[in-house]
């Protein structure tokens, strides 16, 4: 792109600029300029910082046009001009009824997709009436015990029209089965259903820690579901490979990028090994990234992610279908960046983070509410969060052109650097024996914990300023925004509803189907259809998970994964 002669000239100009700039550099400047991930940043970027840019095929190979390999600039030729990103606000709290109400509210306010948050017992495969669930029912999402709860959550919502994302991992098959059963009852054909299941168990072992079974059977559950959906629910994204939680656990941007893609490749290899054709399942894979506060670093991360993925899919996994090469992703702004102090400032943080996701070419977006370090979002806070996206989409003009920062010397250099760091991590993971071994030995977990501690130390030494926390603080601050409280009655009501279902369903048939599930899991058959049959008969999530626990056992974290420094 840049001819050798042109670069020579810039090199000459650069040294004279540098000499001149020296006069302006003073001892007053900060000792270090670095990203939120701790990467040093140059004072200035020029074409000299873009490696290989004098080669004839540089542009085509590294950047190219949007919608063209390696998709650095975006997966669609026209991006937001023809297809706005989906405004997908994550919601779910307390009872199925309250969640249904919030969903209808979000849709009425111009939300274009739904995203379901479940409570911890549901995420961990327990029913509301099991002892492990005490005090947790409905607290950080909605409680789902049986098909009846899913029927209430989606009551009055046209499942053929709205795309629904569900944040669930270990029991993902069960929740999807219940969702399909709701659609069947509503008479919506399964091939009309659009949505995404998070279903990314690897990042649970690495970061979020909501695991039930050991890794191998967990991956089997996933490939079973993929096989079923390929045939029956073709528009469903069966897995959303997530860096979000890795970043929230304290990783750097490069770690988020590398570990997430490494997880993705691990699933791809598992699916190929299970006999699926890469070009059949890969177009249904999607990704989920964090949008943290370091604006340019995040944009570079998304651009690098697309390029790395396309290269690996084409060259390493020999995918031929171009749709297999596309990294499509959802973004959520960084919950861990929000502060309990002066919570209104979180609106500003979220807006800037959301802007980076849009400039980085996201397909859908969740913006956090300002009060999420205090509790689940109040309705007012949730509305401001949605409005933030609408302001970016309609008022700022950033959606008018594709990849507006493409060609920025800084952003291109940073994109290249991200790719290089990710490749170095892939080599390291490979050397250590692959993703599963790295999980078992605590490699990812320790890398992340170390980065999180480093970040905290930088805040405490004030090397890093967090507005309202370690600088610009208010004396005797009193938080006066309304905070949502989950009624204690919620747990009692949910348990009562569950017990009613258990009394009214055909218990003989439920037992027959649970036994059948056990047999299928023991024999290594496809578990998904058996789970679907159980779900239709109102078997509970806890009953199904208990059956699988009895066959596969439970995962316990290796002490090596708990090391802190």
């Amino acid at each position: 792109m840049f001819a050798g002669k042109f670069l020579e000239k810039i090199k000459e100009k650069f040294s004279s600029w540098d000499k001149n700039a020296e006069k302006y550099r003073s001892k007053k400047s900060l000792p270090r300029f670095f990203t939120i991930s701790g990467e040093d940043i140059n004072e200035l970027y020029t074409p000299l910082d873009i490696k290989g840019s004098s080669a004839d095929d540089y542009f085509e190979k590294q950047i190219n046009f949007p919608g063209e390999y390696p998709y650095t600039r975006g997966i669609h030729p026209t991006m937001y001009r023809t297809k706005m990103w989906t405004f997908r606000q994550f919601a779910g709290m307390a009872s199925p009824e309250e969640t249904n109400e919030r969903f209808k509210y979000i849709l009425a306010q111009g939300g274009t997709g739904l995203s379901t948050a479940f409570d911890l017992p549901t995420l961990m495969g327990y029913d509301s009436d099991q002892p492990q669930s005490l005090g947790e029912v409905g607290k950080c999402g909605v409680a789902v015990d049986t098909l009846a709860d899913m029927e209430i959550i989606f009551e009055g919502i046209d499942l053929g029209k709205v795309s629904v994302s569900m944040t669930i991992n270990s029991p993902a098959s069960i929740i999807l089965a219940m969702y399909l059963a709701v659609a069947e009852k509503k008479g919506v054909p399964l091939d009309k259903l659009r949505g995404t299941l998070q279903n990314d168990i690897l990042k649970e072992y690495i970061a979020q820690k909501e695991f039930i079974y050991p890794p191998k059977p967990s991956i089997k559950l996933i490939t079973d579901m993929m096989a079923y959906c390929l045939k029956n629910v073709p528009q469903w994204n069966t897995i959303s490979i997530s860096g979000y939680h890795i970043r929230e656990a304290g990783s750097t941007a490069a770690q988020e990028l590398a570990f997430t893609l490494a997880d993705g490749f691990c699933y791809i290899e598992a699916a190929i090994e299970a006999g699926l054709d890469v070009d059949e399942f890969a177009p249904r894979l999607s990704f989920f990234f964090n949008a943290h506060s370091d604006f340019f670093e995040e944009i570079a991360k998304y651009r690098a992610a697309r390029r790395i993925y396309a290269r690996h899919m084409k060259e390493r996994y020999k995918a031929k279908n171009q749709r297999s090469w596309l990294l499509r992703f959802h973004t959520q702004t960084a919950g861990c960046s929000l502060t309990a102090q002066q919570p209104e400032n979180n609106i500003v943080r979220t807006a800037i983070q959301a802007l980076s996701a849009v400039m980085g070419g996201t397909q859908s977006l969740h913006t956090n509410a300002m009060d999420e370090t205090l509790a689940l979002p109040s309705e007012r806070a949730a509305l401001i969060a949605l409005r933030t996206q609408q302001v970016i989409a309609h008022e700022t003009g950033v959606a008018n052109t594709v990849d507006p920062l493409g060609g920025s010397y800084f952003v291109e250099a940073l994109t290249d650097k991200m790719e290089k760091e990710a490749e170095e991590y892939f080599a390291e993971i490979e050397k250590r024996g692959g993703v599963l071994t790295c999980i078992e030995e605590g490699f990812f977990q320790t890398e992340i914990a170390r980065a999180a501690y480093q970040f905290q130390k930088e805040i405490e030494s004030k090397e890093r300023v967090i507005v309202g926390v370690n600088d610009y603080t208010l004396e005797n601050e009193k938080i006066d925004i309304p905070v949502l409280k989950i009624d204690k009655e919620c747990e009692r009501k949910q348990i009562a509803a569950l017990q009613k279902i258990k009394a009214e369903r055909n218990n003989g048939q439920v037992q027959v189907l649970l036994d059948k599930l056990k047999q299928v899991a023991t024999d290594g058959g496809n578990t998904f259809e058996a789970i679907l049959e159980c779900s239709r008969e109102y078997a509970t999530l806890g009953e199904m998970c208990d059956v699988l626990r009895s066959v596969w056992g439970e995962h316990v974290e290796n002490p090596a994964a708990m090391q802190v420094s």
Partner: protein
Amino acid sequence: MEKKVRVLLAKPGLDGHDRGVKVIAAALRDAGMEVIYTGLRQTPQMIVDAAIQEDVDAIGVSILSGAHMTLFPAILEELKAKDATDIILFGGGIIPDDDKTELEKMGVAKIFTPGAPTEEAIKFLREAAGSRSPKE
């Protein structure tokens, strides 16, 4: 030589978010304390038994799931039942101000909320452990 402060850190309940507890563990260790981290999904009974077994000065508990009003009282009960109320109980997490006040009234020595520097926890533990009179 001054006796080293011994602390047991734990995550009760179903919540798996362990970033905070690991940061605190590292910070307390760097401050010269002895730290035992139990890992995830510990019941109140497991936590209190481990604390007695390890003869710690304090138990630190991290809860981000909203179940704090159930789990802290359960640990306090367990301490009482095992005649171990001399062990200091402190905690951190996403805990609204009203709940924080209530928990501190119940007998939780201190609750740290988001944004609290680790320095504060270190200072608190040194003072609290220094003035503690362990039961024989």
